[in-house]
């Protein structure tokens, strides 16, 4: 049963959690899993692609290969300079269940299980091989929660049938990741320094790092002072409270309380580790490179300061607050989330990330993206609207031509993410060489909602687990096999994944 496995695994991993971030998980890689990928990012975009049409026009997505030459076709064109970094996985299927449905596809996408009735692979990796990272899981969205989106719009499943919502506000995401753990934590941005080590298990500690909260009683500013000891005490006590409750309940609400307990432990580990170590500075996180395309729509752009993990910076201010859901701000929000994800991973903050762009059946008005090829201030063209371009690929139909532009735009955002990873040196190569990045959507053709011939592109070498620069024709193979392959590359011993899995893809 899953839950007992879960506890067992945590016991095993718990012993390793004192190791420096990143190393612990690597050591757990089984001999039979490739296990050399440092990180994985799932990059989702909504409403599919111009695949095989209702009237039988061929898919505009399927790339082909002749000898060493990859022909991308017009939808994947923005990946032109990156084709050698990608494996193009033609023909994968998500199975027949809920075929014809956007939510049905979103439920299967990362779970590999019909109806979303299983944990998603990102969550599984987060709590297993990603367990020793300060943040086991990063789920960043761009307008993914718009209009109080129902849960079937989200693709990350911590438990069978249950989704969580992504963080849609890049300012929140950035602050959470880089402000340290707990209520305030060490703040590398301004202080530069880190508070002295604290032992959170010592209730009577009143060391130098403990500025106290009550002592600020008369201050006019309601900003709490750093109280890492107080954070540690709160977490310890909360864990004790939870264990008592869990014991008293027998099996009642077990899943809920297990997830809760994992979450408390994660923050507790983070707090302890951050207190014990200097800010994570991978040897080669180096100076930030000016990334291509960073000026698009960024009126507040400043020259990118030399960024490192002690002074993390996006170099610009993304939209926040009410502006988060204004369609014209979407490119800026997504850009910020991509940059935050890359920065977080460059600084060893996490190994598992999901970036969710908008939501299926999206109302996102993509014709408001200034500077893009679909920009048209006189006409609102929404994602889902364009995806229902009709029964055939008709170049005189604006729905179709705009849909093509929209898909190309999503691919260009994926390309930006890959470029950002490739621009940073890591080890003997680049971050991208050590990463796996999956481009995915919940349906194939946006008009027919097919769940076959899915638009999947896997980028990066995964530390050597994957040899990119190839087109594979997988002819109906279930996508659970791709998820299992990714999991294996991350060091999890997962021979198959989800429904109808048949084994690991040969990508090495």
């Amino acid at each position, binding site marked *: 049963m899953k839950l007992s496995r879960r506890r067992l695994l945590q016991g095993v991993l718990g012993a390793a959690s004192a190791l420096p971030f990143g190393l612990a998980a690597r050591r757990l890689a089984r001999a039979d899993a490739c296990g050399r990928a440092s990180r994985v990012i799932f990059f989702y975009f909504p409403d599919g692609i111009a695949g095989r049409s209702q009237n039988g026009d061929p898919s505009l997505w399927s790339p082909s290969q002749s000898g060493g030459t990859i022909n991308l076709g017009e939808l994947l064109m923005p990946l032109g300079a990156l084709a050698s970094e990608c494996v193009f996985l033609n023909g994968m299927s998500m199975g027949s269940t809920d075929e014809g449905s956007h939510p049905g596809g979103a439920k299967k996408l990362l779970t590999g299980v019909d109806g979303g009735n299983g944990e998603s692979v990102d969550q599984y990796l987060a709590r297993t091989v990603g367990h020793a990272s300060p943040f086991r899981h990063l789920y960043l969205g761009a307008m993914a929660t718009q209009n109080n989106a129902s849960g079937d719009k989200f693709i990350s499943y911590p438990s069978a049938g*249950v989704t969580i919502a992504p963080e849609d506000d890049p300012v929140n995401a950035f602050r959470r990741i880089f402000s340290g753990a*707990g209520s305030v934590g060490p703040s590398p941005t301004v202080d530069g320094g880190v508070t002295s080590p604290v032992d959170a298990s010592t209730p009577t500690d009143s060391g130098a790092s403990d500025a106290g909260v009550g002592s600020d009683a008369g201050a006019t500013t309601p900003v709490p002072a750093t109280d890492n000891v107080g954070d540690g005490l709160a977490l310890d006590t909360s864990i004790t409270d939870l264990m008592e409750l869990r014991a008293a309940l027998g099996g009642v609400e077990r899943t809920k309380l297990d997830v809760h307990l994992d979450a408390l432990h994660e923050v507790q580990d983070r707090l302890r580790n951050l207190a014990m170590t200097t800010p994570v500075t991978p040897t080669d996180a180096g100076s930030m490179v000016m990334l291509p395309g960073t000026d698009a729509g960024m009126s507040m752009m400043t020259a990118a300061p030399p960024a490192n993990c002690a002074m993390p910076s996006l170099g610009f201010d993304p939209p926040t607050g009410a502006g988060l859901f204004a369609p014209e701000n979407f490119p800026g929000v997504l850009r910020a989330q991509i940059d935050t994800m890359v920065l977080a991973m460059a600084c060893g903050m996490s190994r598992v990330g999901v970036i969710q762009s908008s939501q299926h059946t999206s109302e996102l008005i993509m014709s408001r993206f200034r500077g893009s090829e679909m920009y048209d201030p006189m006409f609102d063209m929404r994602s889902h609207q364009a995806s229902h371009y009709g029964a055939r690929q008709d170049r005189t139909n604006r729905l179709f031509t705009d849909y093509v532009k929209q898909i190309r735009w999503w691919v260009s955002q994926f390309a930006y993410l890959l470029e950002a990873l490739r621009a940073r040196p890591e080890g003997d190569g680049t971050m991208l060489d050590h990463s796996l990045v999956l481009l995915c959507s919940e349906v194939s053709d946006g*008009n027919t*909602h097919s769940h076959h011939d899915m638009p999947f592109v896997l980028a990066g070498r995964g530390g050597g687990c994957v040899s990119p620069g190839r087109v594979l024709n997988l002819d109906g193979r279930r996508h659970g096999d791709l998820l299992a392959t990714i999991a294996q590359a991350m060091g999890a011993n997962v021979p198959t994944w989800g429904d109808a899995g048949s084994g690991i893809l040969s990508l090495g």
Partner: protein
Amino acid sequence: MRRPALTLCLALAALGCDDGGASTPAPSPTADAGIASSTFDPAQRYAAMCASCHGEAGEGGLGTRLVDSPRSVAELAQIIGERMPQGNPDACRGDCPPSLARYIKTNFTSAALACATVPASVRRLRLLTRREYRATVRDLLAIPAPTAGSVGPAGADPACVRRRFAYATTATFHTVNVAGSFNGWSPTAWPMTWVPSAHEWQLDHDVPDGTYGYKFVLDGTQWVTDPRATTSMPDGFGGQNSTFTQRCAPADAGAPSTPSGADPVELATAALPVESRPAGYAFDNDADTALVTSVHVNEFLRAGSALVTAAAPRLRALAGCDATGTDASACANALVRGFGTRVFRRPLTASEMQRYGALVTGARDVDQGLARAVRTMLLSPAFLYRSELGVAQPDGTWRLTPYEVATALSYTYWGTTPDAALLTSASNGTLDTSAGIEREARRLLADPRARDQLGVFALQWLGVETVATTPRNAMLFPDFTDAVRASMLEEARRFVTSVVFDGSHHFADLFTATTTWADATLATYYGLPAVTGTGFQQVTLPAARQGGVLSLGAVLTRYAHSDQGSPILRGSFVRQSLLCQQFPPPPPNAGGVPDVDPNATTRERFRQHTANPACATCHRYIDGVGFGFERFDAVAHLRDMENGHAIDATGTIYDLERFGAGTQYDFTTLPQLAGTLAQSDAARGCFVRQYYRFARGFRETAEQRCAVLDVTRRFHAAGDDVRELMVAVTLAPDFVLRRTAP
């Protein structure tokens, strides 16, 4: 009643309905054991894939009635395996057909359908929603809510003239200043301070009454607007200045101005994660899918710390500790026996008293210890979850404790933690009887807070909360301002609460009322006779604007696209939110949208689209209702013409009470459609269901439909008085009775 056999056949085929069985997809037996294993839950898959045709209790509809099926399990399994779901039998293979067949035979009996008994609810923990968390900490820590306009009396309140400016940033700057009309636009006069814990630049500065424009100046050179500002005006350089109005002297006019970042509760909780609402569940409080992730823990920690700091001057008084004393033991004792009971909504256990007491006594001083203990309480599962676990009864059931009853009552009617009187009722046995529960329920309902909470229900039930931010095309709708959006939300809140509390109290009036509530902004926008004064007033609507909740500005706007109204969204809203009718997923052979003539009008285009039999089977239920809203555009303007064509707002409701019922109502105006809904059993039953969900925090399963039916009967017996519906949900047996989930 014209339904040629051929059409019905097509309809059933395309809907995925067929005679004889039900279906659901199953995981393949080859699925990896253990990891992410799909536990096949026949109830869940029946609800998802079969119920829309066969009925949630197998009572039938477009598909065959399954109750007391004469077929054997093997026969049912064979039908399912071969034909179900219609058009996609691949979706149900392996264990799926026999498991569903067993489920159908076991559960769908006429005895079960009759609902002779009301089943207990499942024992649950209900995580506080963001809304409940905020209200609760406000009450516990005595942090007042910002009133509209946050206007204090005559300059006496120094907190009023003091304004906080805050600029959150992820970039690195050396300086950030506030420049505005209050300081002569000096880029250096008002420097802000970097506050690392908040990850923002802040400045608290006194500002006299007035309206001001301002910007932030980054590194002395970049002038940017305040992303949190809600109002702005042109800056004369082609850009915008942020603006705000400060008003501390007595005034009763003007739009409210909530100072940016002024409310400590909003500040502390702004980054709490958004709830994930299950599909088809309108509310933010579904207990079964509310998980505490590490992001929650992170934010609960931050919030607790910030809130305790904000309440620091009051903390000793709140906890019952001596104002200046240094006796930590005495303070600890007071805390765990007094204030702790309020935080946990029950007396602390002995081990909790020991733990929390030690937090106070183990600290450097009383203030530090108290702060730590309180913020630790705010992270405890005892605080974060509303317990509805109950205690075991001799008969094998479970019954909520009096404290759990008090908590359920308070959050149901007020959306916040129990007050002192409720906790007293819990402790003295009042809540052990249903008479005591009813007395408290009626007391809570008589309080103004019950109106606010019903307003929350109204916005979530109608799905309109996001009208404040849903995108609209400003070139097409220049008068659809932020003020109009805000007034529409207030209209929706006031309309529902006034029908229930002030008007006839009658359910039907939610559809047939000829009045609404408007302020000057909204009256002008709707073209109603001018409303004078500042507040909202009840106004009589012209006939064309009548329709109760159907013609609320927020509803008309929410169910539309950025540039045009949507008969599909509006029709789906009526079917799903008001009639609780769910549609099966489209079968795989339905295909996509056929090519349409781009030159046709909206209604003509939809007519083409619904002429396709594969689409028409569902869309005849949706579009025929949605066309009734055609006199309203995407932002609730009335119109007679669209693109030179006269508006046709006639429509038809097929199968109003139940899919497959074979009824048809034609209507010519929206008020007629609304009047039909007002008399509909399906609409009334759905309203009960929606309120039941809101009160209970879960989506009822087939078994729990009997609990809903019980409440519906009580409601009907009380003459469809909505106040009695609200009482009935706490009188129904499953309010206090619990069972362990199977």
